[in-house]
């Protein structure tokens, strides 16, 4: 499990990093989104992986059987903030596109 997940996180990170280094704003926003998936999974993984464990304290569940709730709470916060910032970045890139006439991240086409 850990191996698969960490590989997946790595691939998502790599793809995200590749994208945020691209010149088009749209590529960057896709890259940032991929990166936030990767980071959310990473945070989540930090608490250790529990397959098929209980998620809720029910009568008779051992508290220790639950997966670490702290990273989950952190991921939830991170998801919300990630959503907010994605929205913001989108709008700013739209505004930049409108004002500069291009979707290049620097607001102009690179000559080289």
């Amino acid at each position, binding site marked *: 499990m850990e191996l698969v997940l960490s590989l997946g996180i790595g691939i998502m990170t790599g793809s995200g990093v590749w994208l945020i280094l691209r010149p088009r704003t749209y590529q960057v926003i896709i890259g940032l989104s991929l990166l936030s998936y990767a980071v959310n999974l990473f945070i989540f993984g930090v608490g250790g992986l529990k397959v*098929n464990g*209980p998620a809720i304290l029910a009568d008779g569940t051992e508290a220790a059987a639950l997966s670490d709730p702290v990273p989950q709470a952190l991921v939830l916060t991170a998801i919300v903030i990630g959503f907010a910032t994605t929205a913001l970045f989108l709008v700013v890139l739209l505004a930049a596109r409108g004002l500069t006439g291009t979707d290049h991240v620097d607001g102009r086409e690179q000559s080289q």
Partner: protein
Amino acid sequence: MSATILYWSLTAAQLMLSIAMALALLRMVFGPRAQDRVLGLDALYLNSMLLLLVFGIGSGRTIYFEAALIIGLLGFVSTVALAKFLMRGEVIE
């Protein structure tokens, strides 16, 4: 005995559904047209919903149900938006 039967059928179902998802992904990646990709995503959503349900059976817990229900109830929204974008070039007019 029933545990074994269930175990194998669940495993098989999970595997089948995950292969189904992979096949849906192929259309998402290779298209060839945008509509194929969108349809692929819709199918991916559906299959993952089924996978979640299967998973719920496997875990004996109902907590996966909500996630599945959300896909069933809301999953179509993004597909609708994508389709409308393909059709009209604009999502909300």
